[in-house]
């Protein structure tokens, strides 16, 4: 069989796996729901209202969130790894996640300190507040990085700047936590654990549309990403505006990370691990194949992590952040060892 044919059969298998994991996501949780009940609910038949609520209003939006978040973070990671030609690059490296964390810390902890104007009391802000703050923090860092990227030519320098911004934002967050009341740290703890359940039905439309936009943009970049792989000089010779292209890539990657982090909290590891897994499975570095397959595998691993986080034996949901690293780290080690 040629590589192409193998890839197509792998692809079909993966899509089936994805559908299976999606159904398991709807089936598994702390409340046991028999398959027949699930089937009734999904077919719109008359069923127990509790089961319907749990499946349609809780598990379904969570599974859809997992799909979008997984795809977004994984593509963001791929873009970073290609742009920086660094296998360890991931969206959190540029300080975008820490920036989001700082945004959340500012809004939660400062309102606590100022008193009398708690965020959760500001009507519409109560829903959007934390997400908006995270997005603002992430965007601010993204703008900073873009500003630096037009001044420094060397991508390694930019990574170092990103890491430093990340440390800065992290330490500012810690300082703020240090000066806050114990009760005010609550919201920060919740956000920091990461969760796919925070999006919910009401915000799902906005969440999925914003991410779809970013995903499409990254699909259009596939060709340019291939050219970048050849090195800046070659890319220049082929008529690619390397600087403008880099800015686009950072913008897309940062945008996707910012949205996911804003709604789901900082979710580690998917961005780093999925591109490696995908390259290993499809044995290619062609971004026309990699970008869509990274999305697909990102979705699947994310769905799998969500199932593990909500296993019936585990009382309460595990923080998704813990599960992604638990799954991701061994996979990356294994992939790297197999490569040698």
């Amino acid at each position: 069989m040629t590589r192409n044919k193998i890839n197509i059969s792998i692809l079909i298998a993966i899509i089936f796996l994805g559908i299976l994991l999606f159904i398991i996501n709807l089936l598994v949780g702390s409340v046991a729901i028999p398959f027949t009940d699930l089937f009734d609910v999904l077919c719109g038949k008359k069923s127990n209202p509790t089961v319907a609520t749990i499946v349609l209003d809780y598990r379904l939006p969570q599974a859809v969130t997992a799909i979008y978040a997984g795809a977004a973070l994984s593509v963001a990671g791929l873009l970073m790894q290609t742009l920086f030609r660094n296998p360890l690059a991931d969206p959190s490296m540029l300080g975008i996640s820490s920036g989001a964390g700082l945004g959340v810390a500012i809004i939660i902890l400062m309102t606590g300190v100022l008193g009398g104007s708690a965020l959760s009391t500001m009507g519409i802000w109560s829903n959007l507040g934390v997400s908006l703050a995270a997005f603002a923090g992430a965007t601010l860092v993204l703008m900073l990085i873009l500003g630096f990227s037009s001044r420094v030519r060397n991508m390694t320098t930019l990574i170092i700047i990103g890491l430093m911004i990340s440390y800065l934002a992290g330490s500012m967050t810690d300082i703020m936590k240090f000066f806050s009341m114990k009760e005010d740290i609550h919201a920060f703890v919740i956000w920091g654990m990461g969760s796919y359940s925070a999006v919910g039905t009401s915000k799902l439309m906005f969440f999925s549309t914003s991410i779809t936009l970013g995903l499409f943009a990254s699909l259009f970049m596939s060709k340019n990403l291939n050219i970048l792989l050849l090195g800046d000089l070659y890319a220049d010779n082929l008529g690619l505006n390397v600087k403008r292209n880099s800015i686009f890539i950072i913008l897309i990657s940062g945008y996707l990370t910012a949205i996911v982090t804003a709604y789901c909290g900082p979710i580690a590891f998917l961005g780093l691990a999925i591109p490696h897994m995908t390259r290993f499975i499809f044995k290619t570095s062609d971004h026309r194949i990699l970008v869509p397959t990274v999305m697909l595998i990102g979705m699947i691993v994310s769905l799998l992590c969500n199932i593990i986080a909500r296993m019936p034996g585990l009382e309460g949901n595990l923080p998704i952040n813990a599960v992604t690293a638990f799954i991701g780290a061994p996979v990356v080690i294994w992939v790297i060892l197999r490569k040698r």
Partner: protein
Amino acid sequence: MKKIILILFSAIYMMSSCDVVSKKSDISENTNDALNLVSYAENFEIYPLEIGYKLVIKYLSSQNEYYLLSDTVSIPNNLTDKTIIRTPVKSAVAFSSTQWSVFQKLGEIDKVKGILESNYTKNEDILELVARGKITDVGMSTNVNAEKLINLHPDLILYTPYSGVDFSHLGRLSGATMLSFPDYLESHPLGRAEWMKVVGLLCGKEEVTNKWFDDIVRRYESLSDKCSKIEDKPTVFSDLPFENQWYVPGGKSYIAKIFADAGGDYIWKDNESTGSLHIDAESVLLKAQQADFWRVINSYDTPFTYERLEKENELYPLFKAFEEKQLLVCDVRETGYFEKSQYEPDILLADFIYHFHPELLTNEWENYTPKYFKRLVK
């Protein structure tokens, strides 16, 4: 002509609406401060209505209103778009132990279908109900298990609000009314205790909790009156460091108030915070080294001894209260401190008076033995 038709229509409309009014007449809402049935708590107010109560809960700058009506009366017209809670409530989920402990004290624990963090309580009755499946543990306050909560179909969810945390989706998903319960924000010990009235209203047993509360106030005030004339006040400080960080109660916190009312001199009394203060070890040593008493909460499963504490932190023996064995220790496991002490401020006060000024415990307090805070002797 148009005018006549208009008048005619409005007349018909008014007649028809009058008809409805006669069935379910509007009720007048008088929220004059003088009618507020709450005297110490600052974060809730209760106003009597002709057919129930209006409960106002404040959390920082927000305010939520609830109308508590007995399930036998019909809802008046002018309240149809308000948040109505039918009393007595049939099923509730209580996020905090300070909520379910009042249900328990009222003999209404069967109304509580779900609680959080049952692994933190040492209350054997509750643990047994959890083990028998009568009460479901629905997770942690940082990670509520929405599925289990929905599955309980509660009418009411009593939650502790925190800045930036949005619990409203739990109400939407489960169909329950969300009742905010920011009791921890009260800075007066009697204000904290007064929150029992909210649970009393919910259970339709407001007369019981009113009576309890009045008794508490009477006892608390008679004790604090005795201490108010004291000139010689022993100095006191509070809490052990957690992972080498010292958090101590602010100068305007309810603990500071109890120290003052017990005739003690809290070393951070001039601080303006109602929450907890973060203080570095050097400042603690500087201010607290010569303090006479040291209030300590023991959340561990094993009892404290001076020897064990000394092994934990070599700074401890530098404190006068440690050297003179004047640690006032509360064993959380044994006393149920976190769920019960909030509703016994008079007992807490008596505990400290017992140590600060034992001679003042007279009449009904004679032969008193401390319930929560005992001096650590060994």
